[in-house]
């Protein structure tokens, strides 16, 4: 049997060249891959990179659009990061996001006629609660019956979306929506203002940044953050030391689910105004990728979310300018993701051949 000729060795120190170099190489590789694909469509492959940068960051409009798309990803990325820290494999960000959105429209469409300084915090808490409950079910099944949460959270995504569909064709249906499965609009006091007049970027982005900061503090300084890390790394040792493992997992679920629920709130109250079945084009799943790209670091999540959003927005705009099928945008996101996680790994390990 042939041996594996490759070994990984941890790097003792990481030079700046390595930290910056590998990610840049990763981006170049991904762009080269997409350039080849673009060539097949007859467009000029060399223009791809420039068009992408322009499409993502080139104008104020593009840059703000990138941040707009990054906003829900920061929330879902934080949700995944928090859960994964404690080795709670939450793949159900999508369901939790919708749960948060449902809570937002249940309470935000007129049921609570409160002024905005009261209503907005109330809705945020409600949305967090929705997401939290959504994740608490699989967490309970895990701690009580030992049911694998990867699978349950995944399955609950389907159930949740069907449930939302049922609500939107039933009790939550907008009577003014001419039969479309959509909810009523949230009232003006429930809406998050725009950050820039006439653009889509909204205060949800600021909330996302604050959330990242808060999670960072919790992770670094708080007893809960410590407990979550300990439980994630070694639940047996944590239990021995007196850390209540199941309770910590329950708290983790509340926090993680709550963050994903906030994504739903922010999309409804900041961007869409109401709830539809396509509120999220997979933000829950992309959040996992964002979290891992950030190596579960809360502030890294912000950067990773903006990166992922920029690649998508840039590539999508590029597809229109260059006249290639728009599916190239997702190809580019996937390629740069895979290249990027590899690059991040290579900044920590050295490849050795023998």
């Amino acid at each position, binding site marked *: 049997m042939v041996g594996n000729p490759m070994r990984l060795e941890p790097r003792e120190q990481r030079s700046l060249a390595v930290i910056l170099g590998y990610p840049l190489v990763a981006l170049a590789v991904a762009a080269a891959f997409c350039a080849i694909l673009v060539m097949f469509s007859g467009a000029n492959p060399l223009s791809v990179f420039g068009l992408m940068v322009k499409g993502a960051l080139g104008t104020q409009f593009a840059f703000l659009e990138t941040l707009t798309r990054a906003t829900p990803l920061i929330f879902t990325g934080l949700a995944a990061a928090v859960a994964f820290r404690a080795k709670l*494999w939450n793949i159900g960000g999508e369901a939790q996001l919708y749960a948060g959105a449902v809570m937002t429209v249940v309470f935000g469409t007129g049921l609570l006629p409160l002024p905005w300084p009261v209503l907005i915090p109330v809705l945020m808490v409600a949305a967090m609660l929705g997401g939290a409950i959504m994740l608490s079910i699989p967490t309970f*099944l895990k701690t009580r019956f030992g049911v*694998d949460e*990867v699978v349950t959270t995944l399955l609950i995504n389907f159930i949740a979306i069907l449930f939302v569909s049922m609500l939107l064709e039933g009790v939550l249906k907008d009577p003014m929506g001419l039969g479309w499965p959509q909810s009523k609009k949230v009232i003006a006091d429930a809406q998050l203002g725009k950050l820039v007049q006439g653009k889509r970027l909204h205060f949800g982005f600021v909330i996302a940044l604050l959330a990242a900061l808060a999670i960072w503090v919790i992770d670094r300084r708080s007893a809960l953050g410590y407990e979550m890390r300990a439980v994630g790394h070694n639940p047996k040792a944590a239990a021995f030391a007196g850390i209540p493992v199941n309770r910590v997992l329950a708290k983790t679920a509340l926090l993680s689910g709550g963050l994903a629920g906030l994504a739903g709130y922010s999309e409804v109250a900041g961007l869409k105004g109401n709830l539809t079945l396509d509120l999220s084009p997979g933000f829950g799943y992309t959040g996992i990728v964002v979290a891992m790209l950030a190596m579960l670091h809360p502030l890294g999540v912000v950067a990773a979310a903006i990166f992922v959003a920029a690649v998508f927005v840039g590539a999508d705009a590029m597809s229109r300018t260059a006249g290639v*099928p728009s599916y190239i945008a997702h190809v580019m996101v996937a390629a740069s993701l895979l290249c990027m996680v590899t690059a991040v*790994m290579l900044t920590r390990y050295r490849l050795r051949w023998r």
Partner: protein
Amino acid sequence: MDAVEILFTASLWAAAIRIASPLIFATLGELICERAGVLNLGIEGIMTVGAFSGWLTVYMGGSLWLGILAAAVAGSAFGLLHALLVVPLGLSQHVTGIGITLLASSLSYYVYRLVFPEVTSPPKIEPFQPWNVPVLSDIPVIGEALFRQTPLTYLAFAAVLLVSWFLYRTPMGLAVRTVGENPSAVEAQGIDVTWVRIAAVMAGSALMGIGGSFLTLSAFNSFFFDMVNGRGWICIALVVFGSWRPGKALLGALLFGLFDAYQLRLQQLAGGYVPYQVFLMLPFVLSIIALIVMSRRAAYPRALMVPYRKGER
């Protein structure tokens, strides 16, 4: 006809088996990967790529069986990519898997659009036709349910036997099972962990590709965006449900197919008074309940999702 009578109709069981067929392939594929310690969340995309490449091959003039081969090859190519990233490089299996799903499906769509830039209705092929097994297909009820299926369905059942034989009777199968339990045990017996895992993920992904191609070569005759429609994720659940055993996984897939076929029929019965979403939810809810019931006995591959880096403890 009432809810109970439906259970005794041959067509219900025939539908259950039809619905289960792609799931059987893909579940077996995921099972092999996980038995080797690698979670393959790329399954959804790999099925898409299988559905597309198999169909395209046939559309371009290849035979149906060549289409299956193409699906298997394309599936294992993406499996290789996944394996290279998570086995020797030890990247997160979650992220890589989700990345593979995104890459494989969007690449399929992109190529589809390059090949068919100007279509207003999906191009079709001539798919597999049901093949009635002589004599057996004439048995009442059972014959109609089991022996009037397309050849791919028979292949799915054969695959269960083959995979069982492979895992439990061959030296390579033993290596795969062990590498998912304790890679050090494999290394200590002189076998390279990396190669075993890569091979297992490729083989498993080939099966996922075939599972995807069932959708375009047997269940239907053209390729659609998003047509895998979550079937891959269901297979992940089925693997757990089947406690990582091919026989039980088959049972799980059939059960799921049965739930699905049954809910389709119940939907007609309920006369629109129960929201249709309730029926669509049924298979998922029942899967979770089944998982709770099975949870006590599940024996995980111990090294699942644990990267193995030689010389590191």
